[in-house]
């Protein structure tokens, strides 16, 4: 270590700087904090199980067309093979129109995932934005925003969704919109709560002291620090949205036949429950396993993101 240094603020105790070129190489790369979260998540067996199942579901959605042709297998009726049990030809049996249930479940993942992910994304943007504004500025604005959210929360979310879909008509877009709207208040609350705690931290004051604008403070300092609860809520929210989609479809307000959707399949097989159990059981199991997987992942993420576990 070099002993000659012009500045020696603490009596030679410093790690003295080597020449700058060496420095550039010696300095470790900026390590993403997400990598740390991932390494913690990896240790959680249940969360990993959830992640594996979700990956399979996602792959199924992507490659659905390779697994079964939409026009000829998924929606084409084949009345001669109706209500057949599981077999080598039809792995999970056929429904009341003779369509392969396995193929329909695979194609059904597309709708479920799309509605699940997109509606949560819409809800996070809307709810998160409102919550951040309410939490950061406080006062009257906070009051107005949060009371409107309270009114939304006072209506059962499924009822709200039913009302929106029945008013606007049953199609995919309206379905997503309805589910998103009904979960906006949840995200607004989550984001507002964490903004409130972060807003009073000293590093926000420090940012203000160096002259940072409100915009910069919100986007650079507050939002990155409240992502964790939103991510957890989001993972659980996708599960909720998939369930709502299935529920709305079940009562005929969601995806319309013949398009395959898990909830609609469940509804269709309902009348044959006694002599063709597989028509309802497999879509039902699919919904259950997917929701379970998302919840496991959500719980795992909550633990992995929890800063208290950081030492």
């Amino acid at each position, binding site marked *: 270590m070099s002993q000659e240094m012009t500045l020696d603020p*603490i*009596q*030679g*105790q410093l790690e003295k700087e080597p020449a700058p070129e060496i420095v550039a190489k010696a300095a470790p790369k900026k390590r993403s904090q997400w990598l740390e979260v991932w390494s913690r998540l990896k240790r959680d067996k249940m969360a990993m199980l959830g992640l594996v199942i979700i990956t399979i579901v996602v792959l199924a959605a992507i490659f659905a067309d390779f697994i079964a042709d939409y026009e000829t297998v998924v929606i084409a009726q084949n009345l001669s093979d109706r209500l057949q049990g599981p077999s080598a030809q039809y792995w999970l049996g056929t429904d009341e129109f003779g369509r392969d249930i396995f193929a329909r479940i695979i194609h059904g993942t597309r709708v479920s995932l799309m509605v699940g992910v997109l509606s949560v994304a819409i809800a996070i943007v809307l709810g998160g934005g409102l919550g951040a504004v309410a939490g950061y500025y406080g006062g009257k604005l906070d009051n107005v925003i949060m009371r409107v959210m309270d009114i939304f929360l006072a209506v059962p979310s499924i009822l709200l969704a039913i009302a929106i879909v029945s008013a606007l008509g049953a199609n995919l877009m309206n379905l997503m919109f309805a589910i998103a709207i009904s979960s906006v208040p949840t995200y607004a609350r989550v984001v507002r709560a964490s903004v409130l705690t972060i807003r009073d931290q000293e590093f926000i004051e420090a940012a203000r002291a160096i002259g940072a604008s409100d915009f910069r403070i919100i986007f650079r300092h507050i939002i990155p620090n409240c992502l964790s609860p939103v991510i957890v809520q989001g993972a659980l929210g996708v599960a909720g949205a998939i369930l709502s989609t299935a529920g709305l479809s079940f009562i005929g307000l969601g995806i319309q036949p013949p398009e395959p959707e898990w909830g609609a399949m469940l509804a269709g097989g309902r009348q044959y429950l006694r002599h063709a159990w597989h028509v309802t059981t497999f879509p039902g199991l699919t919904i259950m396993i997917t929701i379970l997987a998302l919840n496991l992942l959500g719980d795992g993420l909550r633990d992995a993101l929890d800063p208290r576990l950081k*030492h």
Partner: protein
Amino acid sequence: MTEQMNTQDLLSIEDLSIVYEVDGETTYAVNNLNISLKRGETLGLIGETGAGKTTTALGIMGLVPNPPGRIVNGKVIFDGEDLLQLPKEKMRSVRGNRISMIFQDPMTSLNPVMTVGEQIAEVIQIHEGVSKQSSFQKAKEMLEMVGIPAARSGDYPHQFSGGMKQRVVIAISLACNPDLLIADEPTTALDVTIQAQVLDLMKDLKTRYNTAMLLITHDLGVVAQVCDKVAIMYAGEVVESGDIRDVYENTKHPYTKGLFGSIPDLDLTVGRLKPIKGMMPDPTDPPSGCKFHPRCPDATAMCSLSEPEPVLTESGHTARCFMLQAMAEPLAAQKPLTELNRVQG
């Protein structure tokens, strides 16, 4: 009989080692610690963050969280009995009764939904098996003793200020007339004028009841005002210990000297402080040899190679440093410390 009681150690910790094991990483929190304390004596345990002070206290109380904590070896002999060998049930009757503890933060060590009177009475009921009524009576007496009017026994903790809460905590800890009081940074969270009042109170009560006290702190001034003996901890080891006057006025270990150089002295005006260079070593990867050698201004090659043994420099005053070992060779004759202690005792 009583004569003998007085000269015997009330608490004697021998070669205590405690580790924490997290994710395959071992943190050496306390390493071969030796301290002893007689009835009525006050020992100041001084160290910085991560020196292992609190872990030592938890070790004595049998409260080291397991997992991740584990007592690797050593003895905690309290009044002739090794506490580490006691069954859980028996240890529970020692805790709060014969040994009690005061924690740093009075805000979190009181239950917010119980009145202070109930909290003091609870300890008395558990350990003395007296009636509810007489335990409440005693609780009121205890409050008066720590300078809080008995009329406030029905108040909840949030109705008290920080200093008053710490008084309540002290009342709880003294409720069963313990032989040993362990106080972990009892005044750190308090303002200086309140700290002075609480220290006065503790000093006064200690002499009145002849209670031995282990005072854990980072504040050299607090120790100077309250303690008879002192042990300086660094990286899980006691680096210097002895009579307070010996350690403060005839400082031997470079770390202790460094500590004194780091604090501004009110009676002197110095241009600059003389801090210890560097920082505490990583407890999962302690340096070889003397743990202090990377920060020591007087370190030699030998210091990084082997670990110095505690050396007795004068009656009861020990320090763990090779420089002393060389000088003290004829006196100590390389006897292990425990033996020397016994000779002393």
